[in-house]
């Protein structure tokens, strides 16, 4: 129960800041900056190195001596 109260107070406190989930004007601007039309494209670009690294790891694992 205490943990829920702790997080409740924490989330209430963050309302005064500019977090993504809060309702301030800055928060709304941040949300708009993240969840815009480029969201999926940016997500793919940020994630892009990791699938490539995965492929390289697969190749290394396949051709690595036992």
């Amino acid at each position, binding site marked *: 129960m205490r943990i829920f109260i702790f997080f409740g107070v924490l989330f209430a406190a963050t309302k005064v800041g*500019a*977090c*993504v989930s809060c309702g301030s004007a*800055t928060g709304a*601007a*941040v949300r708009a*900056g*993240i969840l815009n039309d480029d969201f999926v494209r*940016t*997500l793919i*670009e*940020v*994630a*892009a*190195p*990791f699938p*490539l*690294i995965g492929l*390289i*790891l697969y190749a*290394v*694992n396949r051709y*690595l*001596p*036992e």
Partner: protein
Amino acid sequence: MRLPVTRPLTRAGICVGVGLGGFVDGIVFHQILQIHSMLTGRLPADSLVNVEINMFWDGLFHVFTWVMTVIGLVLLFRARLVPEMLWSGKVFVGSCFFGWGLFNVVEGLMNHHVLHLHHVVEQRGESIFDVAFLLFGVLFMLVGGCSIRTARRHAMKPDLETLPVQYTASRCGRPASGPDVRD
């Protein structure tokens, strides 16, 4: 004689190295030095809104590095099931360095040079620091690869200290181990 197995340990080490290399980048460059963030090539960190948007994408980047680290730890845990495993610190640390270097090379090429999401020192744009980042990646891969090779070679060499003992024992008619099958 069966050769010791190193592949599962190497695989796990590379995954851990990729994850930890990503954390080094995120913690040192994004958070402590704050010389770039994930999207500073497009959204310069000159306002609170831009800083927070960059922080969000930094967080997602850290999610991916965290996932790589967890995959590495799972592979390491599973490697314990391989009976002939060579549990070598040199192989594991070498693999981690190889993974770190691999992360630097791939992330550096894609994010700094192809997609231009950010540069190592954002104020300078595409600079010598981006090249240095790649070179350190290649260096780490070479150091890691050499360390793995050396450890494997060392493990495959016959134990030279015990050879004369075995030879002497067999000359005296007492085999070092197992039954005498000469007759």
